């Protein structure tokens, strides 16, 4: 008996009509969401599900239990889309290291931000030509073009305009001289020594916000 048949059976039992049902699947199929909606399923989520998504998916139907009318089906996408647009940052991550890419991307996505990844400074410049970003997280050392060179190119392009791209130098392991190089490159260090802390809006260690 699959999940849908089980839900149909549950719905036939008067004593279970008030049950809040959430469906979890590891492979979504076309039409599943519509079928869930028809069966009064509260949420349809793909596995593996993140702890925070599950918590929110459970909290919403329970919180909405007293509301009247049709409650829209909760999905992974609706959980993200329901965030206030002003709270969602568009972030460009310029990083060549796979582990760091995954780490920073997941931490940002968990907080509902949208992340675009570039593998080096050159790719980051191309991405910035195509679209606008609220923030750029820039690794200092990358192949092809490093973060220092890419940020210098961004600043050069901004000369004579009112545009100012926020660029945050990103390194998990600050090497002697990096901070000095940022300063020498004309970048304004406005937040230093954040080691050991997680800022609520920006999510990496050892970072310097550079102007």
């Amino acid at each position, binding site marked *: 008996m699959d999940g849908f048949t089980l839900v149909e059976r549950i719905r036939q039992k008067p004593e279970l009509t008030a049950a809040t049902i959430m469906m979890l699947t590891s492979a979504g199929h076309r039409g599943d969401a519509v079928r869930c909606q028809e069966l009064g399923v509260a949420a349809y989520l793909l596995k*593996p599900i993140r702890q925070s998504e599950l918590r929110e998916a459970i909290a919403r139907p329970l919180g909405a239990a007293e509301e009247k009318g049709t409650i829209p089906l909760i999905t992974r996408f609706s959980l993200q889309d329901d965030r206030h647009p002003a709270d969602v940052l568009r972030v460009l991550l310029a990083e060549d290291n*796979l582990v*760091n890419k995954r*780490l920073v991307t997941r931490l940002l996505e968990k907080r509902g931000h949208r992340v675009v990844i570039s593998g080096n400074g050159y790719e980051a410049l191309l991405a910035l030509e195509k679209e606008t970003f609220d923030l750029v997280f820039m690794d200092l*050392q990358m192949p092809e073009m490093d973060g220092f060179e890419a940020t210098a190119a961004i600043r050069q392009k901004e000369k004579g305009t009112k545009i100012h791209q926020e660029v945050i130098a990103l390194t998990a392991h600050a090497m002697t001289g990096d901070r000095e190089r940022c300063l020498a490159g004309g970048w304004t260090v406005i937040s230093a020594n954040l080691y*050991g802390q997680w800022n609520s809006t920006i999510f990496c260690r050892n970072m310097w916000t550079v102007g």
Partner: protein
Amino acid sequence: MVEAIDHSAELPLNIGELLSRVDNDQELLRELVQLFKEECPRLMKSLRDAVSKEQMKTLETTGHTLKGMLASMSATRAALAASRLQEIGRGGKHSQLKEALAALESEIAVLIPELDACLVDAGL
């Protein structure tokens, strides 16, 4: 006043720092450990080849990549060992190449079981 001494940098893996870095998210921890364990052998092979052929540029770039990964995994000792190879690649002493590689190999050998144990401790 006696200052507390932080010995965490002397450990192969600073688990507290790593957990804090992943926001105490055990799924993310598992993902990162798996990714690291997939990437690490490839990078180590590249470093071994670079050392045997004395390809300094590869040594510098691959040493840098591995250093960054190790730092993110809160494996400071191994990160410093990778950093040493990176520095040699950048123009350091060739005579120390094999010794530096051996030091990194031994740090990685200690680190991998520590990472596995960290997942077991986290119930993953």
